[in-house]
């Protein structure tokens, strides 16, 4: 059997191209879902009449859908109503929708976990609402949220592999093509994917540890 042939220069390059797409899709989704999820979490936290309720319902619906369904939705259903993305951005859109919903809940829970007295103390010294949120409440909430946010981002990286279903040329997809050509390559490709996903996710968990340790030692 020809295991080593699996790691020809061409195959490795092909895998790494897949990894690059995985990382790009994940990075774009992380940035977008952090912004959207943060905003949605904030809206739910400050309880704006009606709006917060509506946002809450939308989030609950999204959180209870399989991600695969959302990927189908952005790739197959949205074009039917005239919204057309290519495969890359369809994947980003689907992941962003899903991860925003997850993140907004983490962020809302983190904000809620900060004692109410903190907000009151900030306001009663004359700080306005946004100053109090950004200087007093958010840094405390963030410290509690970092581990949950990072583990959410790690699942996001792994979830990019679901976009294989719409043929996004990411890591899993490319590995599949390689072992599709030669069944001897199945095992090597699984080993390669394991190693590559592990490296990316592990780097992210190191970032988390760094952020946690860098937080004020109070």
């Amino acid at each position, binding site marked *: 059997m020809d295991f080593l042939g699996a790691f020809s220069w061409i195959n490795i390059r092909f895998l790494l191209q897949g990894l690059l797409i995985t990382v790009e899709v994940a990075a774009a989704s992380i940035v977008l879902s952090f912004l959207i999820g943060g905003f949605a979490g904030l809206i739910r936290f400050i309880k704006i009449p009606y709006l917060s309720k509506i946002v809450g319902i939308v989030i609950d619906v999204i959180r209870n859908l399989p991600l695969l369904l959302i990927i189908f939705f952005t790739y197959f259903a949205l074009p039917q109503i005239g919204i057309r993305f290519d495969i890359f951005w369809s994947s980003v859109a689907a992941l962003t929708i899903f991860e925003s919903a997850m993140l907004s809940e983490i962020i809302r829970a983190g904000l809620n976990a900060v004692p109410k*007295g903190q907000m009151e103390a*900030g*306001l*009663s*010294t*004359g700080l306005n609402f946004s*100053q109090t949120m950004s200087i007093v409440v958010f840094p*405390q909430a963030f410290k509690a949220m970092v581990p949950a946010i990072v583990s959410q981002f790690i699942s996001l990286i792994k979830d990019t592999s679901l976009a294989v279903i719409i043929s996004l040329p990411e890591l899993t997809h490319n590995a599949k093509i390689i072992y599709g050509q030669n069944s001897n390559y199945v095992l090597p490709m699984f080993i390669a994917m394991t190693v590559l996903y592990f490296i990316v996710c592990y780097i992210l968990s190191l970032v988390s540890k760094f952020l946690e340790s860098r937080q*004020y*030692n109070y």
Partner: protein
Amino acid sequence: MIEFKHVEKYFGAFHALKDINLTFNKGEVVVVIGPSGSGKSTMLRCINGLEEISSGILLINDLDIRSKETRLPEIRKNIGMVFQHFNLYPHKTVLENITLAPIKVLKKDEAAAIKEAEKFLNKVDMLDKKDSYPSQLSGGQKQRVAIARGLAMNPQMLLFDEPTSALDPEMIGDVLKVMKKLAKEGMSMIVVTHEMGFASEVADRVVFMDSGQVLEDSETQTFFDHPKEERARQFLSKIINH
């Protein structure tokens, strides 16, 4: 400088403040007492807009707190508040806790704010802890820092909501000492407390609340010697005898 006129406050269907009429003047020290749940905190929190009044008029320096033109941050920067549970910012040092609002609200430059903060820390006898985090302080120390934080805005008035209720008995004295010093220097103060020694020593007036009403509002001496209200008498004998 602060005037409640027929103020009502509801939490949903619950009637928390009933026809409150009170005046707090510049330079006055007023102690507010009453059973738990009688509306003392709510009354105090209406003054700096942490609670919204339901009806009636509340004037702060002749400004109607409910009028559209009134900006709450403007009112709040002139009125400090000290909470039962201190509410220091745990992620900031003692010094940062105190300089935050002067820098952000009064736009002081950092060096000037620090200098001022050190002055107030010295006043509450906490200067040596200026670089500590709140978690490294005892309750009594935290409360003295919280008082310094209030003072740093150079407010016209300080509100205290049971500032010693969460403290171990041996720490109460240090906090009361600071508060007495402020009172004697002429700071306007409204103090919700069960410390009757403090009340009789420095209060100009005592307000007694029960079930959302002000039942008595008398000069301190009069209140302790001849409480008009039976319920005030009962309350006094309960807290003084235990």
